[in-house]
């Protein structure tokens, strides 16, 4: 059952990511990226990270991807122009990526006996566990990120403002 859920949502993830590469219209790529992020949230839930699953849906598929679709519609981005960019990307990049995924998969699968396996509910991180670390031990980094977000908001407004 658990293995079945993993393969269903992992398959949706990979299919959505491949669709992102295949589509030539940016809005289709954005929508398939939303599919990838939502099924990743289910995988987080299977790994017992319930807060992160909720945050993934709210922050990634909710906020960030809405921002992306908003910008695509604002700029009226149409069909992608097929300029042949750098030839090195095709002749060295694509085989390099294939080698990378084969190498990583080989290393992970050969070390499979040293890694444990996951069942539903065997290691559940609740919000209170997470907040105990976040608001006590890591209070300073947490506050610093709020300053970072403030700077990002000001920077976005300053960059996107129309100059007179």
């Amino acid at each position, binding site marked *: 059952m658990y293995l079945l859920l993993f393969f269903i949502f992992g398959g949706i993830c990979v299919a959505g990511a491949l669709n992102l590469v295949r589509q030539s219209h940016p809005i289709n790529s954005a929508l398939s*990226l939303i599919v990838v992020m939502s099924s990743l949230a289910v995988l987080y839930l299977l790994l017992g990270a319930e807060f992160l699953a909720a945050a993934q849906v709210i*922050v990634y598929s909710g906020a960030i991807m809405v921002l992306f679709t908003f910008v695509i519609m604002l700029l009226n981005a149409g069909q992608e122009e097929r300029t042949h960019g750098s030839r090195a*990307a095709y002749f060295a990049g694509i085989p390099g990526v294939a080698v990378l995924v084969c190498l990583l998969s080989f290393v992970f699968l050969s070390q499979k006996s040293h890694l444990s396996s996951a069942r539903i509910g065997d290691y559940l991180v609740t919000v209170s566990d997470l907040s105990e670390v976040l608001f006590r031990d890591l209070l300073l980094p947490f506050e610093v990120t709020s300053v970072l977000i403030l700077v990002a908001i000001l920077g976005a407004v300053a960059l996107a403002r129309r100059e007179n």
Partner: protein
Amino acid sequence: MAVPIAYYLVLSAILFSIGVAAFLIKRNIITVFMSIELMLNAVNLTFVAFAHQWHQLSGQIFVFFVMVVAAAEAAVGLAIIIAVFRTRNTLNVDSVDLMKL
């Protein structure tokens, strides 16, 4: 039936590689930016899988901070894309190769 952590790591490697390939192939600046988000998500899956493997909370805390930084990065990056589109009227990365107009 339990799922080995190695399967999660392999899935994350596949997603990361698709992100790298999309970064190299795509010509639209917004789609290139989206493939960066895909790579960030793949790395997040690795963090959560290892947090489950070692029963450590730090992995999940890392993912939380990655999400925060990704949100800030998306806001600033999309603002830069809007500014680039205003001055050049194109979204093709091959036409954006000069620092100054």
